């Protein structure tokens, strides 16, 4: 029995007198290795192994107050004391004081035993993968390579006082690389194949980094800007996700009000949709059910350009008098977490790029986290905006791009283009560019 299961079982017994409870406990084991400035490992990025129990518990006491607590490997040994500690911090939150009715979790495949073996027995594939990344980057002409590769194996228990008891294993694999401190990429997955064929993915960043070595001048003007799928992820995460979170909608911190969702207000172009799907087999952000016991699945947030539903946990679902939705996993780009933006008749990414002329291709921006997501306005530095002329990289310029991302989602001339490698499309939109 894993430490997570043991802890969860003990907690469930101890909490039997509470009005309600739910918990999530994970036994997490991981291994990773990194490279900084072409140096594999060294002091700052040594191979690392980690193991711990992590999780949380939510309790509704007899008087209706609620408590939240953290679970770790010590919880089991100090249970009576921890429960008293959590009780001492109980507070009133009537919308939150609810345990989901028992619903069978969605069956989603999330585990690859070969990845688990890497974590527990043989870290060799992790070293080999980072060596592949470095070799591919150097072959592409990189001067400076930074990279990281890691795997984890987790046993998760999710349980509630309404009878839910879900126990499942999952594995995760992550790879990241940066070429010449300018262009970068990531690959996330759950199976052993995530570590294969990295050279082609690395070469995409490598070609951009090579193009960035030639500096060109860009005059200040309004012009077309193409966000790579990676750059588009950061816009989707910062602007769309923030304004779709039920907590922000209900508390007045979103661009959109609850009434707008109820009325189905049109906020984007009529062919644009936004969907969350957390039940993609082997999806990096997939799961069986949320930590609250809500089954994993698909929810439409924007359909036909109209607001359909915010992302709602139990508390805000009750406050908004709407159904709870799946929640995107944290700690990864929104597309990998299952949040995808779509438009009708999307082009292919390669076709969009090959047909691009007099545009700035943006792969990363500085300062996204400093922008106010509610306004939609952005004013961002792009140290290496790639100038594309007649489908060819003509060099790079440091530019500042500005505009309004939410307005762009409503513009007829905004273009979306999907690649095979990315969950969200690249986006071409009009911006003001300062050279």
């Amino acid at each position, binding site marked *: 029995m894993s430490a997570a299961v043991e802890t969860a079982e003990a907690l469930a017994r101890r909490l039997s007198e509470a009005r309600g409870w739910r918990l999530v406990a994970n036994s997490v084991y991981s291994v990773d290795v990194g490279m*900084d400035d072409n140096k594999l490992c060294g002091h700052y990025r040594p191979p690392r*192994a980690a*193991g711990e129990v992590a999780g949380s518990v939510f309790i509704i006491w007899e008087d209706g107050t609620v408590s939240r607590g953290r679970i*770790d490997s010590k919880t089991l040994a100090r249970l009576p004391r921890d429960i008293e500690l959590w009780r001492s911090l109980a*507070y009133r939150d009537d919308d939150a004081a609810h345990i989901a009715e028992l619903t069978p979790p969605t069956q989603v495949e999330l585990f690859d035993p070969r990845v688990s073996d890497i974590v527990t027995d043989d870290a060799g594939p992790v070293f080999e993968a980072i060596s592949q990344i470095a070799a591919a980057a150097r072959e592409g002409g990189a001067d400076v390579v930074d990279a990281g590769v890691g795997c984890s194996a987790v046993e998760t228990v999710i349980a509630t006082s309404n009878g839910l008891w879900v126990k499942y294993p999952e594995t995760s694999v992550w790879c990241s690389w940066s070429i010449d401190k300018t262009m970068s990429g990531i690959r996330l997955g759950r199976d052993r194949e995530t570590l294969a064929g990295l050279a082609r993915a690395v070469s995409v960043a490598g070609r951009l980094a090579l193009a960035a070595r030639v500096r060109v001048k860009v005059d200040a003007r309004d012009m077309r800007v193409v966000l790579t799928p990676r750059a588009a992820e950061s816009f989707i995460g910062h602007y769309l996700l923030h304004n779709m979170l039920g907590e922000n909608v209900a508390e007045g911190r979103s661009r959109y009000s609850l009434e707008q969702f109820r009325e189905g207000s049109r906020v984007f172009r009529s062919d644009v949709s936004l969907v969350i799907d957390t039940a993609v087999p082997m999806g990096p952000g997939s799961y069986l059910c949320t930590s609250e016991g809500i089954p994993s699945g698909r929810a439409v947030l924007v359909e036909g350009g109209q607001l359909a539903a915010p992302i709602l946990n139990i508390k805000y679902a009750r406050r908004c008098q709407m159904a709870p939705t799946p929640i995107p996993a944290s700690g990864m780009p929104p597309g990998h977490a299952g949040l995808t933006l779509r438009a009708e008749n999307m082009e292919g990414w390669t076709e969009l790029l090959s047909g691009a002329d007099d545009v700035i291709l943006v792969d990363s921006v500085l300062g996204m986290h400093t922008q106010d997501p509610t306004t939609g306005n952005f004013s961002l*530095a792009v140290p290496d905006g790639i100038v594309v002329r007649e489908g060819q990289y003509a060099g790079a310029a440091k530019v*500042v791009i500005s505009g309004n991302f939410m307005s762009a989602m409503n513009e007829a001339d905004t273009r979306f283009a999907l690649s095979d490698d990315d969950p969200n499309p690249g986006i071409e939109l009009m911006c003001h560019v300062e050279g």
Partner: protein
Amino acid sequence: MRVGACTEACRAAVGRAEALGVYAVVRVQDKIERAVGVVNGRTDLKSVEEVSGVGVQVFTASGLAGFASSDTVTPGSLVDLVESAARLARESGAYGPEPAKGIERVRPLVAQAHREAPMGIHAIGHAREEELVADICRMTMEIDSRLAVRTFYRIVDEEWRIVRSDGTDVMFSMPRAAVMNMITARGDSHTATVNASLSGEDASVIASPEGRLRLEKRTVKAARTALALLGAPRARAGSYRIVIDYALAKGLAHEAFGHAAESDCMETSILGREGRFRVGERVAADIVTIVDGPLEGDYAYQPISANGIPRETVEIVKSGVLVRALADVFSAQQAGVPVTGAGRAESFRHVPVPRMSNIRITVDDPLPIDLAFEDVAPQDVRDCLARAGLLLESAPVLYLSGYKGGQVNPAKGDFVFNCSAIYELTPTDIRLCQPAIFSGKVLSALGSIIAGIGHPILDAMGTCGKSGQRVPSSGGGNMFLVIDGNEEITIGGV
């Protein structure tokens, strides 16, 4: 101290390391963190977290390094971690790793630096904490019905113990607390979000009359700014003479300069040449000084590094000239600088890297201003500039108020940060404009500082992200800095 209880486990680790022929650095962390969140007057969160764990880093004689961590701190667990880290270190040898060197050159230290905060984590009960935070939130909401407010308070009592194979055994504490008011104003078709915060080492930020008064003043100022921004125009993009407040000055010092002065990135930093720190080179006017170091009572206080070396106060720039880098034991020699004890780690799970604590940028002979920072209005800034002959007839001077975060690429010297609001100051008018990014080249910005206004204020709080780790940071500068127009520094654009 709580970390004093793990002596047996630390000894077991060091003993096992010796038996395996490796050098070990054991880092034990024990953190208690309590938080209260109130949203629009209703309690949204009350939590307490007790986190403890240990990370073990080992080095073989040939410089192979490995790391293992666990949230179980027992002799048996630590022995397992040493073995796991040593196994990984040796396994890495087949892939041509960079040798890790330097730890063998430092002297052993046995010390304890326990900082007892006057209003520490146990000084105020949970219920009173909740009342105080809710009161701040409601007070903010009462300013105007168009405001949505999230007030978040966190108090942390964090202890570390660093034990090394050379006999080093140090313990230190890092108490801190902060309260943040996130204020969103909503108009018919616009929204604007601004923040007001106060940080320190203990609950005095919400519970002392002085703390409460300062927070109230900051909150009222921020809320009024948010409301005024609803109808504000945008500033025209371009290069201007600008005035930044001390929080933005901290951003400039931290994001634009401090990271480039960290010894681990000297091979690619703009402050490095051929991997070595450019000591003796002029980077700013001779009125400019930049210092980093721990301050007692500060939000980012850390007296000893995560490698067990006392943290020094470092003059990075003195009279405009580069003097010292922020260096840890592993990259100091290669960067050609002395070790300053700059290694910090977010948690027991992380490997320490050189980074800042409290960084401040100050200017000699600042222009006087006889007001507390919270009481300074844009008019006061303009009058001060006018008295000093720094207001321009030909173009507005832009006063950037409030820091909303930033980012830097130390290898290229590009920085960007954002403010809460911009005021266009002219001899005849003051116009509030929407915030826009302040971006440019690090050395251009430093070289363009022409004046300071007011005495230094050093409590601008933040969270510093580097190498996937987030640690508390703080700093500041003179109440305001004046940066001359420079085509490599731009506002906007729009």
